[in-house]
């Protein structure tokens, strides 16, 4: 990401979709790729060695979120953790009620399982959000009925970056004895997430969002919480997640968790500075641009906004030609190219939704990257607005 003058500049600003693995993470993984082929279920020493590597990693992931190691279940991706949590918690606790509470800004890996549960007879309340994307804890309180068994909410949406009042909500759910699942994909490993202090019963997290590898994720599950397994078969992960583990991936996740815990403060100081400058400058250099999500109570490296009269894919493709990688709409479903339900939920008008961009900084970005975006984006917008039949109509 440096200022290399020979090669065309490369500015990766899509860290909310995937962070570049830390070289120290990769160094930790390689020997395990080579040597850990023993099936950890087996009693021979090859398997035991592999098991030890997995347990060490479990310890590190647990420490990062202030959990016990046995409360960490390894999975293959954030989507699996979310599907597992939503379906597994709802179905396992069905006898106590059939009402679930979620929000209108959840990731599809939460929404689709909820839709399936609705077909099975569950009722789901989708809480609205305000124009900054904040869920109101008192609206949650009002939504609770004596049938409510589970609240599942994102800690921060990847599309708008707003930090949700998980703390207040956790106090309500704990008091009412309702399970609380948090989609912490964007927060765990990025900002401090203390599952005990926040009264979280289940937390989804993924290594590829804190400089670990892809293919390694986890579900924190409070000890004693009833859940139905999602992957069925073997006895891995204490019978809660069958299937051969991604051994090197898990090792990488452990190392990444350790680094995140130790370096988080330092990383975020830098990220917040870059974020705040871009948030301040973008509306200055581009007319008809506005920031989406909360102006300050948001993920440290996250800047999102909408450029009016222009479509996002076109902008991001021109940015890419300049070496800048960003997301448009939901990074995780760019291909869908649907009008983002998250932006609609915060009240962005449908035609403007299509001009959304997300710039997400990572620990390897530099202040110069902010300058680069501020230099390159305005002419792109201007160029596309010349092409646009919308501008004049306004």
């Amino acid at each position, binding site marked *: 990401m440096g200022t290399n003058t020979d090669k065309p500049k490369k500015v990766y600003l899509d860290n909310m979709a995937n962070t570049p693995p830390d070289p120290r993470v990769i160094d930790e993984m390689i020997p395990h790729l080579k040597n850990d082929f023993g099936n950890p279920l087996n009693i021979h020493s090859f398997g035991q060695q592999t098991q030890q590597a997995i347990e060490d990693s479990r310890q590190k992931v647990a420490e990062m979120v202030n959990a016990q190691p046995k409360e960490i279940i390894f999975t293959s991706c954030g989507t699996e953790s979310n599907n597992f949590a939503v379906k597994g918690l709802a179905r396992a606790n069905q006898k106590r009620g059939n009402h679930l509470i979620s929000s209108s800004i959840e990731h599809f890996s939460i929404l689709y399982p909820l839709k399936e549960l609705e077909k099975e007879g569950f009722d789901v309340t989708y809480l609205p959000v305000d124009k900054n994307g904040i869920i109101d804890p008192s609206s949650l309180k009002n939504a609770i009925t004596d049938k409510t068994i589970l609240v599942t909410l994102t800690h921060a949406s990847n599309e708008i970056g707003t930090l949700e009042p998980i703390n207040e909500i956790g106090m309500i759910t704990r008091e009412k004895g309702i399970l609380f699942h948090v989609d912490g994909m964007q927060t765990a490993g990025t900002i401090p997430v203390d599952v005990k202090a926040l009264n979280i019963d289940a937390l989804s997290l993924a290594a590829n969002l804190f400089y670990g590898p892809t293919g390694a994720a986890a579900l924190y599950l409070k000890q004693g919480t009833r859940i139905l397994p999602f992957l069925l078969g073997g006895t891995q992960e204490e019978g809660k997640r069958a299937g051969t583990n991604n051994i090197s991936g898990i090792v990488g996740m452990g190392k990444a968790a350790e680094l995140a815990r130790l370096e988080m403060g330092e990383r975020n100081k830098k990220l917040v500075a870059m974020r705040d400058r871009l948030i301040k400058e973008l509306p200055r250099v581009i007319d008809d641009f506005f920031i989406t999500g909360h102006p300050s109570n948001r993920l440290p490296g996250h800047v999102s906004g909408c450029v009016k009269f222009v479509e996002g894919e076109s902008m991001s493709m021109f940015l890419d030609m300049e070496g800048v990688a960003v997301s448009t709409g939901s990074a995780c479903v760019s291909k869908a190219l649907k*009008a983002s339900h998250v932006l609609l939920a915060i009240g962005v008008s449908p035609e403007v939704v*299509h001009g959304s961009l997300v710039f997400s900084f990572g620990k390897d970005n530099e202040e110069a990257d902010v300058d680069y975006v501020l230099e390159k984006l305005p002419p792109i917008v201007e160029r596309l607005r010349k092409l646009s039949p919308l501008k004049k109509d306004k």
Partner: protein
Amino acid sequence: MSPNYSEKVMEHFKNPRNVGEIDNPDGVGKVGNPQCGDIMEMQIKVKDNVIADVKFRTFGCAAAIATSSIATEMIKGKTIEEALKLTNKAVVEALEGLPPVKIHCSVLAEDAIKAAIDDYLRKSTGTGLQGWTPRSDVEEEEHGHQH
């Protein structure tokens, strides 16, 4: 899979032909809608039943821009009858293919031309294009907004 655009698409996206507006156009077609993220506006100047000039403006993705651009090239200098024969398939072929999720954009381009001709016919003859309704609006539904 993310859109794997052909070189031809990229070329038209980067350097679109016939962008803009025509002074006193003989026909204007505007299709798509902002909620779905694609709007194409096509303006034509007709002389002796021939499309003497055509300009477009498009709000949309790279495929939307490229299909409008190439479509203007394909009808410029053609008679109204010839222009009406331009199918979205021909547009896709001229662009050396489009990713499946983007085929819709080519339908939009075909529609934009038909809408402009429809407008021209309405103005010049009093009746529009016989039995024509924009296909793109129908597709919209089928695709469940997947364009």
